[in-house]
């Protein structure tokens, strides 16, 4: 008898969220964020080369509330992509492919990225300038 209740490919609406898919999706999302951020880094360097007036425009944008939000978001995206990227490199070397290890390392990526972001901003604040 044909079973019409057979599971189909993972439809996001009915698929139970688990940490393995969260880390995978976040790696792509943070990659795109950092891609946009790379253009902002290019803008900063071009402005610095162009002169004080252009640098002033960039500097003012970076110090605005929106600029602060972008810098903070960039820091987290960088921290996450860095830690999860290291995890991927370890997996490329054949390490930690068992399910418990995979789940544990996924949590290290997520929580580690928040800790690293907090650390970077704590040091930045202590340096006296909110970037």
């Amino acid at each position, binding site marked *: 008898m044909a079973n019409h209740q057979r599971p189909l490919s993972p439809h996001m609406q009915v698929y139970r969220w688990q940490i393995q898919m969260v880390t995978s999706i976040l790696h*792509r999302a943070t*990659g*795109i964020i*950092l*891609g946009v951020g*790379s*253009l902002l*880094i*290019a803008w900063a*360097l*071009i402005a*610095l*080369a162009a002169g*004080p007036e252009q*640098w*002033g425009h960039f*500097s003012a944008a970076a110090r605005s509330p929106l600029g602060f939000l972008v810098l903070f978001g960039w*820091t987290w995206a*960088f921290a996450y992509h*860095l830690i999860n*990227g*290291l995890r*991927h*490199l370890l997996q*490329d070397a054949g390490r930690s492919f068992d399910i418990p290890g995979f789940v544990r390392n996924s949590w290290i990526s997520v929580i580690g990225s928040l800790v690293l972001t907090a650390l*970077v901003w704590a*040091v*930045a604040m202590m*340096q*006296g*300038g*909110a*970037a």
Partner: protein
Amino acid sequence: MKRTGDHLRHPLKVARGLGSAKDGTGHFIIQRITAIALVFLGLYVVWLLVSGGAADFATARATVGHPFHATLLIAFLVAMFWHTQLGIQVIIEDYVHTAGWAVLLQLANRFVCILAAIASVLAVIRIALGA
């Protein structure tokens, strides 16, 4: 193209996607090499931003123009835009299946990444040479 064995097969068959192009691991390897480089260079840039984020125009220029920082910054920029281009390429390959859009986005991805890389490297060189 070098062909081994099977001389009865016309090279056109390979060109039409019916055989290996012999560079399948190139993308994978370069993505990993740039990733490993960016672990170090990315942390260095974050350290540079945190330690000198509040710097004025003259100080920022002097830092970026220093041969040590200019060298590492250019290495960072090349690795970052190369890695970004490879990553965005895979995302487009995975999600964009309309032939026209796929080609258009792949072209745009390469043009933007390469132009931004050239512009930002040129900016660092101009600052380093005191232009």
